[in-house]
């Protein structure tokens, strides 16, 4: 029978075994974050959700300094808006082949079953499931394509893209022998000319117009609304901005490219492509920026390019650093998440009313040192826990 258990010592021993409960200080779009937003940010989250629910097409800038939690906001939105397709892209990764990469991210987020159901519904709309004599589905693939061609042209600009997409969609649904290849095309796989000609297609989805049109088809025909979260948006502006006069350069790019440079040209093109997304009905875009200065710059750029599109850009939402109260809740959530992961939830209940192994004063000190920046807080917490775990000094003395 266990008469006494030193639960605090047990926790310290456990931490020595598992390592620091906080493993990372940077949030990414790939690894899911389960930590809830701190209370001071709940209001901002609600206001963003309100904007998403009340508007169809917009670009909503979220402005926050480095490490404040812009990417973490994406995960909070994704959890909260479970009835939406919330798709994350980091602009750094999709600067080249923007539409193709964005489409791929949508497919990854939505899954192949959703794509199949969209394609099936489209074919039904074009009469593929019309019943002859009230019973028999005798789909005439050519007739279905003809109806599709009659229905679609007004909605899309590129005739070649419409042609490819209608052929791929109808082949997927009505030609069992080519279904697998057609699905590969719809999923965005790269295909050689022989595979494409077998499907009667001109290009795969690497072609800009095909990828854009397919993205439009996917978003507009999905049963749920879509939100595109573009992280690191200021990347475009930093490329577009002229370089510092004092910076040292071995050769002047203007000798080769005139006033522009390949990077600038690419950045301009990507901005144009992002602005083109307003043609996709119902696509809500959230962009993250590091400062107000970038926002002003983006605003000016959009006005320069097309003044009519400036209505798309909404009033920015500002994310600020944590307030002191947040760090306590944040710390608790982090530990709770860690103990849940290692299946020690019940044991952690013993520490519900304390901040063990830290003290309130430690957390206050960390908050002060980090000035409330969540990333800095995480860094300091990792450092503190590492000290606790690795140090040979007595715990009591160490924590003082």
């Amino acid at each position, binding site marked *: 029978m266990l008469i006494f258990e030193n639960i605090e010592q047990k926790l310290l021993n456990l931490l020595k075994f598992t390592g620091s409960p906080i493993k990372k200080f940077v949030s990414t779009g790939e690894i899911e974050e389960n930590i809830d937003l701190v209370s001071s940010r709940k209001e901002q989250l609600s206001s963003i959700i309100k904007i998403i629910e009340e508007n169809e097409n917009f670009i909503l800038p979220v402005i926050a300094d480095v490490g404040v939690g812009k990417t973490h906001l994406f995960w909070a939105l994704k959890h909260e808006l479970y009835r939406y397709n919330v798709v994350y892209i980091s602009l750094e990764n999709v600067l080249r082949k923007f539409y193709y990469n964005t489409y791929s991210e949508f497919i990854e987020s939505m899954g192949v079953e959703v794509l199949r159901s969209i394609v099936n519904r489209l074919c039904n709309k074009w009469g593929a*499931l019309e019943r*002859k*004599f*009230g*019973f028999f*589905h*005798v789909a005439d693939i050519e007739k279905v394509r003809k109806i599709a061609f009659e229905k679609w042209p007004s909605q899309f600009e590129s005739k070649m893209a419409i042609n490819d997409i209608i052929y791929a969609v109808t082949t997927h*649904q009505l030609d*069992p022998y080519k279904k697998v290849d057609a699905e590969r095309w719809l999923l965005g796989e790269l295909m050689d000319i022989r595979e494409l000609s077998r499907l009667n297609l001109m290009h795969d989805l690497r072609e800009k117009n095909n990828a854009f049109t397919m993205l439009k088809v996917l978003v507009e025909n999905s049963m749920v609304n879509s939100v595109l979260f573009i992280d690191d948006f200021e990347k475009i502006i930093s490329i577009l901005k002229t370089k510092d006069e004092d910076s040292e350069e071995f050769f002047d790019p203007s000798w080769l490219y005139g006033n522009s440079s390949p990077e600038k040209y690419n950045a301009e093109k990507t901005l144009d492509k992002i602005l083109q997304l307003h043609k996709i009905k119902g696509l809500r875009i959230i962009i993250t920026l590091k400062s107000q200065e970038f926002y002003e710059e983006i605003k000016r750029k959009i006005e320069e390019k097309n003044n009519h599109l400036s209505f798309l850009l909404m009033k920015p939402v500002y994310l600020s650093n944590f307030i002191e109260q947040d760090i306590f809740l944040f710390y608790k959530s982090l530990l709770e998440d860690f103990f849940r992961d290692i299946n020690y939830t019940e044991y952690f209940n013993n520490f519900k009313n304390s901040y063990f192994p830290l003290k309130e004063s430690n957390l206050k000190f960390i908050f002060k040192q980090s000035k409330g920046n969540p990333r800095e807080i995480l860094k300091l917490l990792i450092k503190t826990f590492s000290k606790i775990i690795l140090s040979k000094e007595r715990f009591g003395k160490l924590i003082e």
Partner: protein
Amino acid sequence: MKHINNFVLYDSMRELKVNGEFTGSIISKCQDKIIISDNIKISESDGIKISQGLLVGFEKNRDKMTAFSKTLNFHFHDTKDNLLEYSVKIPEETMEKYDQGQFSNDFPFTINLLHTAGLLLNVDDFRFRINHLDFFKGEILKNPVSLILKGIIVADRVVIDHNGDPVFYDCLIVGRDENDDLNISYETIINVDDTVVEFVIILGIEELKM
């Protein structure tokens, strides 16, 4: 799965008639033939009209019986001696189940006959009997229509099992129960002893496309 909805539009045995114009999926029995149509118009003054319905059955052709399916307009006068036995409209939710059960588009190893042909015909006169069940053993044949003793089966496909009996998949069944009331049922699979089958006809895809 049995339906007790009001699906019977006309039943000569029960002297039941619902006046009006109906569209959807309608099965009618006319003597030993079946009419499949997407419309029917029933009125007191003009009798019963079916426009562009598919008549399925066997006809005597010199010294042999030939299966056929013809698209025709039908007009039955409202007299007791008219040839139409009954007309039923399959409920839409049953048709949705029937649609979901079809798999031809995804499954390429199904035999679609170009022209309508008889797979089985059981008649008293053995000279006219047809039985191709052994020939198609293990094959999947698309669009079978069958007349059983008291009922009709319209199925998506039929497979002949190792006993030589037809197994219908994704089928709509119309028939009379012990009280001679008409009933409609949807079954995903039904095994029928070939001795109780009056005929099985495989509809030709050309006739359906026309």
